[in-house]
């Protein structure tokens, strides 16, 4: 299936919550997902001048921000409940174009903040999610 050709625009790329019927987090401003590998240093006194490493544990996080609305379908209130109850939040990072890739996995909310900055700004929320288990790549069908 053909997907997006060329640069993918940010507007449609969002974080969604759920597994079988994912729901977009309402009124997102930023969404990101980040992967990393812990590198184990294996160089020793017998090594040369160059450092040596082996890959260790992989981990991933997701984060985002949005505009705060009390009546949002999936907004700060639902994120607050998941943070308070320490429940698993299944997330997907994707747009809605058939043939494009999507990235999904289970997370816990590690930080959540509500921000009212200045006098002439929208109230916003920010969140960070720690992935637990694998981050899976699949194709949107």
């Amino acid at each position, binding site marked *: 299936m053909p997907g997006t050709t060329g640069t993918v625009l940010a507007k449609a790329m969002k974080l969604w919550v759920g597994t079988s019927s994912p*729901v977009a987090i309402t009124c997102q401003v930023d969404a990101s997902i980040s992967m990393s590998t812990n590198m184990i240093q294996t160089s020793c006194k017998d090594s040369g001048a160059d450092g040596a490493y082996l890959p260790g544990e992989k981990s991933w996080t997701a984060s985002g921000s949005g505009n705060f609305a009390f009546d949002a379908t999936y907004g700060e209130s639902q994120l607050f409940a998941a943070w308070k109850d320490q429940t698993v939040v299944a997330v997907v990072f994707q747009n809605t174009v058939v043939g494009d890739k999507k990235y999904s996995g289970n997370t816990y909310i590690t930080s959540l903040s509500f921000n009212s900055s200045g006098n002439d700004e929208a109230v916003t929320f920010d969140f960070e999610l720690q992935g637990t288990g694998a981050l899976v790549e699949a194709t949107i069908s």
Partner: protein
Amino acid sequence: MKVQYLKDFTTTDGFEIKKGWTVEHDDAVSAIQIAAGLCVQVDDAAYPRRQEQLVFECASPSQIPTPNKSTFKF
């Protein structure tokens, strides 16, 4: 695709959606939900909100009670 629910629906993750709510699913999920008669497509600019709104549904003629003439007073 954004949709407005015509009936209450709970996802397998336990997220409860009430009749009238506007929700954004991906296109494939929305299409399945629409085909199941759970929701209708709404404008992409619609704000996904939990506010329950009036949803008008068509009723079949058999569901519409026939007025009893004796109830009319002239």
